[in-house]
């Protein structure tokens, strides 16, 4: 009886460790998918900045960005602490969930990084390249947290 109990206990512990590892991997995959999808959506919009309009970038901050393509203004920022929102034509929609961080950096025509001012803004007129970085992830078990950081450089051809 005791031997059987010990055996059953060890079987359960083996099973639960396998299950935990499976759950963690699921979260890691989800974090990667979230980051990839968000970055792809943002790239598609941001690359069109300046198309058929005089000012392609309306507002450039280290945590948010508003671009203009033809007559449409589109802005991206983090909201509700863990989402990336896309505002276009007045309505805001979530494009990514469980976001830990989003940041923008900017380069001028010579490839130099622009230094943001005290409130994180950069001069919109000289921006030629945008570096977008997205970190996604959620705390899973105890100290382990699944997270994924992806970064991309965008050169809108109409700026």
């Amino acid at each position, binding site marked *: 009886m005791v031997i059987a109990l010990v*055996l059953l206990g060890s079987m359960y512990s*083996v099973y639960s460790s*396998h299950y935990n*590892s499976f759950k963690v991997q699921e979260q890691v995959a989800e974090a990667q998918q979230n980051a990839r999808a968000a970055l792809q959506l943002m790239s598609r919009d941001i690359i069109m900045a300046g198309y058929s309009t005089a000012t392609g970038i309306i507002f450039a901050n280290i945590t948010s960005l508003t671009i203009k393509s033809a007559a449409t203004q589109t802005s991206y920022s983090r909201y509700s602490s863990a989402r990336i929102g896309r505002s276009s034509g007045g309505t805001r929609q979530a494009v990514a969930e469980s976001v830990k961080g989003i*940041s923008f950096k900017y380069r001028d025509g010579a*490839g130099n990084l622009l230094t943001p001012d005290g409130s994180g803004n950069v001069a919109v007129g000289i921006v030629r390249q945008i570096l977008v970085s997205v970190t996604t992830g959620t705390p899973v078990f105890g100290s382990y947290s699944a997270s994924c*950081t992806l970064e*991309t450089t965008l050169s809108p051809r109409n700026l």
Partner: protein
Amino acid sequence: MNVRLVETKGFTLIEIMIATLVFSVALMGIASLAVVVIRGNFISKQISTATALSQQKMEEYINKGYSNFSTGAVTENYGSITAADGSTALYSGYKRVSVIQNGPIANTRTLNVSVYRQSDNASASFSTIIAK
């Protein structure tokens, strides 16, 4: 008659203990499988990070354009690759070496980015050609 009676008594303690031993060996096999799987997952995450880091560097050079960088090697050692938030802790276990050479034909440059992992010194290497 006597022999038959002994046979119908069931298992002895010794037999059960041997069976338990055999079973626990099998259980240990499954447990060690978990260790291998977790290690594999960890390595695959490191490879994903290394790939993202080298892709990021390549995009940086491609977007800079041919005339805005020169040939040579740039090494970002362990602990010097900064994340978007300015911290170096996230990528402290990675080293990135970017090598730019002229060629293979006139007015082109070959860019090779290798990202090394500190844990096992294995690397993810990518290269591309940038034209003038």
